[in-house]
């Protein structure tokens, strides 16, 4: 069967003392493509190979040899002999074997180099004189919609009914309330226009009242230009250098794809070093190595601040400040196919962050009322109202949001955290938004104490995903990151545990995962780009290994799935008993002091009745 072009004459010569399997595989492919091949026996001298090439009238000579110290000179000598003998006028010469790279082939003087993992098609393309085109997917990545195809129907009717009741009560309570956070968000929604801001136009109406709606820190910024002590404005030179760098990287960036034969999960990574330059540098590295999405991490003091500041700001510590300029710069730097998530899941700026992110083109946000109140330090009533409106705005700006059970990390058992997650998600569904469930794949305090992961990391994590699926038809995105608290300072171990959790997640057909770098858990400081690549590379390998097959959880997964379901149901009933979502948070139903959950205090007593309900 002929594939394309003329029939070529190919001489295949193993310079290795032993026959090379690679050459045999290539020979087979060449024969099938209709070419004329001669495979020499191993261990012939260079002169003999050259003579054979002339006798055959070869168009292509393929040499195979394992590289090692001293072997480079032998191969270089072969290239020289072929050149001096005039063979290179007649034939192209390729070198293949372990440790061969294109760079080595160039140095040794060959026309092509084929290392381990080279697809046979690439060697055939070389013989036929064509450029080898790897999968089209590499060239054109598309931005996916994580929530596509989900109906949000409650499969478990009983739980669906309980959630409906909780949401009914909650919506009635929240709709008539407001907070300074909500006021600011509404103000920004009404008066702050992204296009006008980008164009440098005056937004006097916005600034007329905005500072008054803020707390001290932002108000001092707007009135006096005072910055948070740990921040500074990026210099003009830094701005330009960043722009240059992005342009330079863009010229040569070809985003990889991590997924193999399965389309999902999409892989998210986190950024937020505090320095916008570093963030963008990391983001480009992440995109190049296959990340599908990036998540903005902001400083923890942002959660306790009423209001957002502005400016292209660098922050001395962890977390990149949320300002219009900072967010815009990130957005500008992203490749078109990269998903961008800006979190709003705790703190006094929850609602306003959603609005700002929406205006600046974020694809997703993150909202979890229960976590933000019980583990994130925000007053429950305050966050409930802010969260309610944040969900409304997320719907308005068409941003799906994930609901992450970070309170598991405090020690709250999964069943309680899931109850809280489901309530927030159900509020989302009710308000026309598109929530995504984010259970944790982690070695949480709960499992440390109760032993669910003594044997393996598979069953309990599987149970979590399965119970959620059992309850509702919604997207599932394990985080945050997966494998949290199973990582160590050992780079290999850290990458491997991430990859194995990714493999489990893929087996469970989840929609997305969040992974960390291999040094994130232990870095004590800056996260390196190399550590980012570690886990992306490992994850890709895990997907390759798994393909369309699956890791199969054991019977304990079923056991824990039942227990989780029963637990969630009981909690939801208890929520109703104590009077609803907000009282439940205060009274520890969704996580109590013994669990390690404490109702937050930031924003206490800031909830007020609205002038008009919405």
């Amino acid at each position, binding site marked *: 069967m002929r594939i394309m072009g003329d029939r070529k004459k190919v001489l295949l010569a193993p310079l290795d003392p032993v026959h090379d399997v690679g050459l045999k595989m290539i020979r087979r492919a060449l024969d099938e493509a209709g070419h004329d091949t001669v495979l020499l026996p191993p261990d012939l001298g260079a*002169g*003999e190979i*050259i*003579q054979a090439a*002339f*006798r055959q009238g070869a168009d292509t000579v393929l040499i195979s040899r394992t*590289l090692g*110290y001293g072997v*480079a*000179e032998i191969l*270089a*000598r072969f*290239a*020289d*002999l072929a*050149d*001096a*003998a*005039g*063979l*290179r*006028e*007649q034939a192209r010469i390729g070198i293949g074997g372990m440790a061969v*790279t*294109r*760079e*080595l*082939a*160039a*140095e*040794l*003087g*060959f*026309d*092509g*180099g084929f290392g381990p993992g080279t697809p046979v098609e690439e060697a055939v393309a070389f013989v036929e004189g064509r450029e080898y085109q790897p999968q089209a997917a590499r060239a054109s990545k598309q931005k996916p919609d994580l929530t596509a195809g989900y109906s949000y129907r409650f499969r478990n009717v009983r739980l669906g009914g309980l959630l409906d009741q909780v949401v009914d009560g909650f919506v009635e309570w929240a709709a008539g309330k407001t907070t300074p956070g909500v006021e600011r968000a509404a103000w920004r929604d009404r008066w702050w226009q992204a296009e006008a801001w980008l164009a440098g136009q005056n937004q006097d109406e916005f600034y007329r009242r905005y500072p008054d709606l803020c707390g001290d820190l932002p108000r001092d910024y707007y009135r006096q230009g005072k910055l948070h002590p740990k921040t500074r404005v990026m210099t003009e030179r830094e701005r330009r250098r960043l722009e240059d760098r992005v342009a330079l990287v863009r*010229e*040569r960036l070809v985003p990889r794809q991590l997924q193999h034969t399965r389309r999902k999960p999409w892989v998210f990574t986190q950024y937020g070093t505090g320095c916008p330059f570093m963030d963008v540098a990391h983001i480009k590295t992440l995109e190049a190595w296959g990340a599908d999405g990036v998540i903005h991490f902001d400083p923890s003091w942002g959660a306790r601040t009423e209001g957002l500041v502005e400016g292209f700001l660098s922050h001395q510590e962890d977390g990149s400040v949320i300002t219009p300029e900072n967010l815009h710069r990130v957005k500008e730097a992203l490749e078109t196919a990269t998903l961008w998530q800006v979190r709003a899941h705790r703190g006094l700026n929850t609602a306003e962050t959603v609005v700002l992110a929406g205006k600046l083109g974020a694809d997703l946000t993150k909202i979890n009322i229960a976590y933000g109140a019980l583990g994130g330090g925000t007053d429950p009533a305050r966050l409930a109202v802010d969260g309610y409106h944040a969900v409304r705005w997320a719907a308005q700006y068409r941003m799906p949001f994930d609901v992450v059970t970070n309170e598991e990390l405090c020690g709250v058992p999964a069943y309680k955290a899931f109850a809280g997650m489901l309530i927030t998600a159900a509020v989302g569904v009710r308000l026309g938004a598109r929530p995504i469930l984010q259970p944790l794949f982690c070695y949480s305090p709960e499992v440390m104490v109760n032993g669910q992961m003594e044997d393996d990391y598979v069953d309990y994590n599987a149970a979590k995903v399965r119970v959620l699926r059992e309850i509702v038809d919604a997207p599932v995105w394990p985080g945050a990151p997966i494998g949290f608290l199973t990582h160590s300072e050992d780079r290999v171990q850290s990458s491997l545990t991430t990859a194995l959790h990714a493999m489990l997640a893929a087996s469970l057909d989840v929609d997305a995962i969040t992974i960390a770098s291999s040094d994130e858990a232990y870095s004590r400081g800056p996260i390196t780009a190399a550590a980012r690549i570690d886990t992306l590379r490992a994850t890709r390998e895990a997907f390759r290994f798994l393909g369309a097959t699956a890791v199969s959880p054991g019977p304990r997964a079923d056991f824990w799935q039942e227990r989780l379901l029963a637990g969630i149901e009981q909690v939801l009933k208890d929520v109703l008993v104590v009077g609803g979502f907000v009282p439940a948070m205060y009274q520890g139903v969704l996580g109590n002091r013994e669990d390690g959950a404490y109702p937050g205090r930031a924003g206490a007593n800031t909830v007020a009745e609205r002038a008009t309900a919405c």
Partner: protein
Amino acid sequence: MLTVGIAGTAKNTGKTTAATALLAQALGHKVTTGLTSIGLDGENLDNVTGLPKPRYVVAAGTRVAAAAGCLAASEAGVEPNVASGVRTPLGEVLIGVVRRPGHLVLAGPNKRSELRCILDRLRDLSCSLTLVDGALNRMVPLVEADALILATGAARSRDPAALAEETGAVAALLDLPAVLPGSAPQGIVLGQEGDTTRGSLLDPAQVGVILERVTPEVSYIFIPGIVDGGCLATLMEGLRPRGMTLVFGSALHLLVSCAPRTLHRLLATWGDSGGRVAVCRRPDLLAVTVNPFYPDVAGPVVRPAYVDAAALEQALRQKVKVPVVDVVRAGTEALWRLVESRLARE
């Protein structure tokens, strides 16, 4: 345009160091310079030993011919990037002028016919001097150069006496006379029609065939390709040396298939018996550069190591007629002066 090729006898003999030294001198003397390589140079770490390597930092105005993949990985900005039609494992060789100075990774045309083509393109860009960096112990494409610098050192052999002998032999071979144009005497040329060996002498059976064709009128035998040492010895034994000239493609053609000292010995014996040798292409050997460095592979990890530099230089000077220069110890002036005076003769 003067083309200077930098040929090495092994890896890590200091080719790129010599090239960067000359580049810097050329820049200082405002000589428009072109740069290419028949291998891969300017990368951070050695592909085989993992040790750091000297890097190219090119100034604005330098003309370069480099593979597309290298330019993409380089800090230096080169424009315009005109396609040359020459393909390498790292992409097509592009020709241009450095606009933004910086580090350059350099892979170029790695065979003779392609180097010839690239040199023509660099000539079109008004280069007065073009440097062609070599690769490992590969040399044949450098036959296209006008002049050569031979880089050798401890990476080739740590024994100064042995290295000196070999280098002396190589230098003497590079000094073989070029064929003089003149009336066409009768001769035998290998590689004519029907000759499946295309002009190379590799098979002992060929020797007999050649000898049968030798008549008293035949005054030369031209072997344009490669020559197996054993076959050459057999051929010489069967010939009457007096009045016979053996013509080869170049000294480099001989060096690829026969050890220098063996070759030197064979040719010396031939010469002593009245026979003559000539080559078609004869780049001038300007200098030998010597590098005392060698990679120490004895331990678990490859480490840099050095022999006694002064002793090595001394030993080489005893056996080599052209100047011997250690660019790192003696500075780059001496080497540049040799290139400069050759340039003046263009």
